[in-house]
């Protein structure tokens, strides 16, 4: 069976797996963004706390992905939960780091001006610091998404959802019928998704970054 025949014959399944993959990556990155932003906001003003947060995220990041998913099994068993937890942990580093870099990179004069006009701390964060740091934060989220996209394939190892299943089952019976086709379909699917997400980020960046920062 040619690759094309393989894809058409299993179109529905592939589409479903692709959707699952995208949905998992999207949700994990969203979760990581919420957590990462919260951690960054809580720590960026105190340098040792900020370093601690970035350091911890870096340590998590250095754990090999197979080991990480493996470590999830005794705690969360198999399936969606361990996949999401592991992926979210991976996704954290670029996000936390960029949030902290972005927020602490805001010109102190801007903060002074904002405080000097009578904005409360929360207003300064919402109206000045976050909008100014936004391009950097968004870059972090984008990098994190690309990274998660690849790592998510490993989720199949803990019976997680997504295109990883194609790759894993394909590689497991290499030489067998359609083995290569399966692995190829999974890999190409992931690449396509990555390109799609990247395009989406460019659009989101345009729509959510103040025009004043782009001129």
């Amino acid at each position, binding site marked *: 069976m040619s690759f094309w025949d393989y894809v058409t014959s299993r179109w529905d399944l592939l589409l479903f797996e692709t959707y699952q993959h995208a949905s998992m990556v999207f949700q994990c990155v969203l979760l990581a963004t919420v957590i990462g932003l919260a951690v960054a906001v809580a720590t960026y003003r105190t340098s040792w706390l900020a370093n601690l947060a970035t350091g911890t995220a870096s340590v998590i990041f250095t754990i090999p992905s197979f080991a990480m998913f493996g470590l999830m099994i005794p705690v969360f068993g198999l399936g969606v939960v361990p996949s999401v937890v592991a992926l979210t942990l991976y996704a954290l580093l670029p996000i936390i780091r960029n949030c902290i870099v972005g927020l602490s990179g805001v010109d102190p*004069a*801007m903060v*002074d*001006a*904002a*405080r*000097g*006009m*009578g*904005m*409360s701390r929360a*207003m300064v964060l919402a109206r*000045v610091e976050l*909008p*100014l740091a936004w391009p950097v934060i968004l870059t972090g989220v984008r990098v994190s998404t690309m990274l998660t996209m690849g790592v998510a394939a490993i989720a199949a190892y803990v019976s997680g959802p997504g295109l990883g299943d194609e790759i894993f089952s394909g590689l497991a019976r290499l030489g067998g019928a359609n083995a290569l086709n399966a692995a190829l379909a999974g890999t190409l699917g992931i690449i396509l998704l990555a390109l799609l997400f990247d395009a989406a980020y460019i659009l989101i960046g345009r729509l959510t970054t*103040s*025009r*004043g*920062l782009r*001129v």
Partner: protein
Amino acid sequence: MSDDVGGVQIDLRNLTKRYPGQAKPAVDDVTMTIQAGEIVVFVGPSGSGKTTTMKLINRLIEPTSGEILINGEDARKKKADELRRHIGYVIQAGGLFPHMTVADNIAIVPRILKWDRKRIAERVEELLTMVGLEPEIYTTRYPRQLSGGQQQRVGVARALAADPPVLLMDEPFGAVDPITRAKLQDELLALQDELSKTIVFVTHDFDEAVKLGDRIAVLAEGSRIVQYAEPAEILANPADDFVRGFIGENGAMKLLNVTRVADIDLDQALTVAPEADAAEVHRELADRDEHWAVVLDRGAGRPVRWVNREELADASGPVEDFGGPVDVTISGRSTLQEALEALLRSDAELVPVVVKRRYRGLVTLNTVQQAIASLREKAKRR
């Protein structure tokens, strides 16, 4: 809003700020009163504590000890954010938020104060016009689409948005060329004529201080007040070498620049009506042993002709048939420098001074010299 009130008085009492881990306080036991409606300029070397003193006033920095009274009320009794909404603040290069349009930048405090949309829009338009930027063009621009001078104008407009009685300006015109800077200074003075806010203005530039300040505070390390007086007094009688160093070499010339003709003792000459009898005027000049007489317009009291004693010898008829027209006059609002300029430019030894179109007296080189001497004398006696 406090449209009609103008500024309020600010009192600093034994104000001290010691940053953690620093041996010497950045602001060391400073006591001063800033009068309502005045521009007080802080000048002093880098690190003398000017910015710190200013930030103590709007509580961006809390004092280690001492008090700040704004309009007689202890600034620390109010919520800091609340307090700051009624103190305009302009920092170097405007400090505009690049992600907000000009209109949004200006509208920040009015929005915090929950003004309604219509009122905010009107206020933005009014302020832009006030600082010389056309609202149709500039409301929707972003700060990065403006020149440095335009940004600073917006910075001033933003600080004035909710009509605060107090304005703090920390080197607001630092980053522009001298011509734009002079223009911004003129605009600020014109605004202040109208608004009479209490303005604390920080600069390194003594000439700027002289031009803008109703009073200048020369500060040394620890924000120690070396001299706090009107510009003319500081120029006429600097307290010590430190102040002299700030003034620079040509203090006397600068003094000419800050003294108004209306404020000095003018020379007086014989004044006559156009129809006065020439022979009569001649006799009177001889009696007074004077050389020149000024012919004043009927009614208006405007100087129109000069006549001198020689021309009137053996003359008869109305005095307006003799002498020559007055072509140079100066206003009482001119500075002595401008008077000097007028004297040097025209061939005349005397230039008549006109206040509200009426003759007030004469300026000669001697008048100017006398005036400077007496300013020095007065400053010393104080």
